[in-house]
């Protein structure tokens, strides 16, 4: 354990040492105007000491497990695949002190030995590289060295690498979704998926189980998503927009300073809490209300989920709209008031038209959020894929299906898990399209007042 972190400690210590040593070296040099401050030379030395050694450490760490595994398993040439993995895991457990039967002790010993050997070798190598790097850098510390340039270039490279991670994330998302979806579409035709009216992905556990034939027509799922989204936007749109208008245009700054954060609390509440509220408070009381009114309201109605989701996204609508309306320059407002307009006329005729693109963008972002929202629907909407427009019935959504299909220890290559990825890809593409469009609109809008 100690041996595994010791190299890092060594690198840190050497790095610090290199900084001071290099800085001292340049300070001792005859002072002319240097292409960098002494600190830059210090960092230069540190970089040479730290970076190669760290890379070596990382590479070694990544590779050594695999190498050791191969060596250990080479004693069992006839084992392969899952069996080998099983064996190796048990060997590892044994080495970690969890005794299990049936473990070849020789292999355990070998493993422990190899691990120690590897750690020692890594320690030696890292130290050597670090020392070498230090001297390499040290030798080059001369007043002619453009230390500042070098250090800054190194920094820029690091920054660039960081910014690549975002791209890698997207690539990862797309790849993982596409690969599984591709496999899914080899089993189920895309036509069925996009146009089929029956969704029943549970594979029969028993032969005679009803309606578990594995139907993958996603239309009811999409329809459910749409229904809930529409309900949510019917709630959030007007309330959010009017709140934003009131806050931006009418409210006294002090009132606004209180109300705005209060509204934003709504967005900060975890969705699971909303789900909890919807499932345990709203749905029962709605069902009771329905009973009183003579309506059949399912206990997992689209209405309950949509209402709660609508409330959740009120702040998205209101905050964005508010931001956009306050970004409309005061001068336009003054221009309108100066012509004798009332406040509501100013809002309706000047501010809203000016802000419309931004507000539309905001609405699109809110819709995308509603579509992608998971927990509320998982807890408050149903699993049943009803193709209905009746808000009192239970519907299911894309996100609900993804969650339910994947939770639990499933075989990862069954049709239904792959179906989840297909749904995921659809979700990704739809929200992506909404976002791209919204960003376009918003961006265009914000350019207007540059």
């Amino acid at each position, binding site marked *: 354990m100690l041996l595994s972190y010791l190299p890092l400690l060594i690198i840190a210590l050497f790095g610090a040492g290199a900084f001071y040593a290099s800085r001292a070296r340049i300070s001792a040099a005859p002072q002319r105007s240097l292409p960098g401050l002494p600190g830059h030379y210090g960092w230069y030395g540190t970089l040479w000491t730290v970076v190669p050694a760290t890379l070596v450490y990382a590479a070694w760490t990544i590779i050594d497990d695999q190498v050791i595994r191969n060596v250990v398993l080479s004693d069992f040439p006839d084992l392969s695949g899952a069996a080998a993995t099983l064996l190796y895991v048990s060997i590892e457990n044994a080495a970690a002190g969890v005794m299990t039967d049936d473990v070849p002790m020789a292999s355990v010993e070998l493993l422990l030995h190899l691990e120690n050997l590897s750690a020692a070798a890594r320690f030696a190598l890292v130290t050597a590289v670090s020392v070498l790097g230090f001297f390499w850098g040290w030798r080059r510390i001369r007043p002619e060295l453009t230390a500042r340039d070098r250090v800054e270039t190194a920094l820029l490279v690091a920054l660039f690498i960081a910014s690549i991670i975002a791209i890698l994330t997207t690539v990862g998302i797309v790849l993982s979704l596409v690969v599984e979806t591709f496999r899914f579409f080899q089993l189920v035709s895309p036509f069925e998926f996009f146009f089929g009216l029956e969704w029943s992905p549970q594979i029969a556990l028993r032969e005679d189980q009803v309606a578990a034939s594995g139907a993958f027509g996603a239309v009811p799922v999409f329809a459910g998503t749409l229904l809930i989204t529409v309900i949510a936007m019917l709630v959030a749109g007007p309330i959010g927009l009017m709140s934003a208008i009131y806050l931006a245009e009418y409210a006294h700054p002090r009132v606004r300073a209180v109300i705005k954060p209060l509204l934003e609390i709504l967005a900060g509440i975890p969705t699971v809490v909303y789900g909890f509220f919807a499932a345990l408070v709203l749905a029962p009381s709605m069902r009771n209300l329905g009973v009183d009114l003579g309506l059949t309201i399912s206990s997992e109605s689209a209405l309950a989920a949509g209402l709660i989701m609508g409330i959740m996204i009120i702040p998205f609508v209101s905050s964005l709209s508010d931001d956009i309306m306050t970004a409309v320059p005061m001068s*336009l407002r003054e221009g*309108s*008031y*100066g012509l004798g*307009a009332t406040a509501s006329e100013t809002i309706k005729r000047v501010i809203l038209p000016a802000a419309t693109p931004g507000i539309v963008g905001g609405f699109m972002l809110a819709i995308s959020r509603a579509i992608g929202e998971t927990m509320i629907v998982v807890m408050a909407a149903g699993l049943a894929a009803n193709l209905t427009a009746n808000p009192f019935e239970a519907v299911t959504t894309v996100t609900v299906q993804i969650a339910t299909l994947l939770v639990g220890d499933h075989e990862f290559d069954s049709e239904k898990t792959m179906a989840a990825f297909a749904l995921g890809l659809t979700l990704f593409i739809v929200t992506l399209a909404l976002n791209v469009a919204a960003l376009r609109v918003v961006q265009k809008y914000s350019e*207007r007042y540059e």
Partner: protein
Amino acid sequence: MVNVSALSDPQPKLVARAVSVYYGGKQALFDIDLDIMSREVTAFIGPSGCGKSTFLRCFNRMNDLIDDCRSTGSMLLDGSDIAGPDVDVVQLRMRIGMVFQKPNPFPKSVYDNVAYGPRLHGMAPTRGDLDEIVETSLRRAGIWDEVKDRVDQPGTSLSGGQQQRLCIARAIAVRPDVLLMDEPCSALDPIATATIEELIDELKSEYTIIIVTHNMQQAARVSQKTAFLNLGRLIEFDETQKIFTNPSEPSTQDYITGRFG
């Protein structure tokens, strides 16, 4: 050179009497008395923060938009009060138009910009009337020839000086008597400034104009009367020529000759 005290137009357009303005607890204007004559350009000059804008915005009650702003004293337009709480600011602002420091055309077409006020106040029952108002206003603002072929393009696509003239056209489209201008040229380059000054000179035959400016030369060029404010007080109010050739107050003299601070 005419002496101020000798000025005695029978009916001033705007009268301020003992006007004081407070922002919260801070007094920004102290007891200002001033008569603005009809069809003249009156300039307000003074160092930064002396209260020029505040005073200007009293005339069309724009200060009402500022929450903690409160004023006392009386202000009369053609003899009737405009400061009282029961005065209809909508009507007031119809009669007293305003042009701002930064040109602020609405993000609408040139036409809609100018038509905004008339539509609001139901001034043009038919499209034809509206067309006429728009054209007349643009003409009067001296920008008709430049925009007549593109009244459908957004007002924001015009150049700075044109935008400011569009704003003037918009203001005069509701047929105000008075135009208030708060540093209307300070965001413009010298050439655009010159065209606006030119326009102000023409407009004064029909409108009573009050202009706030930091630029003393501008005040000198465009105005007939000049009021010098300092620290929230009206120091001197007189013929512009008198102020710039021979002011009565030493502090006016110090300010305009650059002997300040």
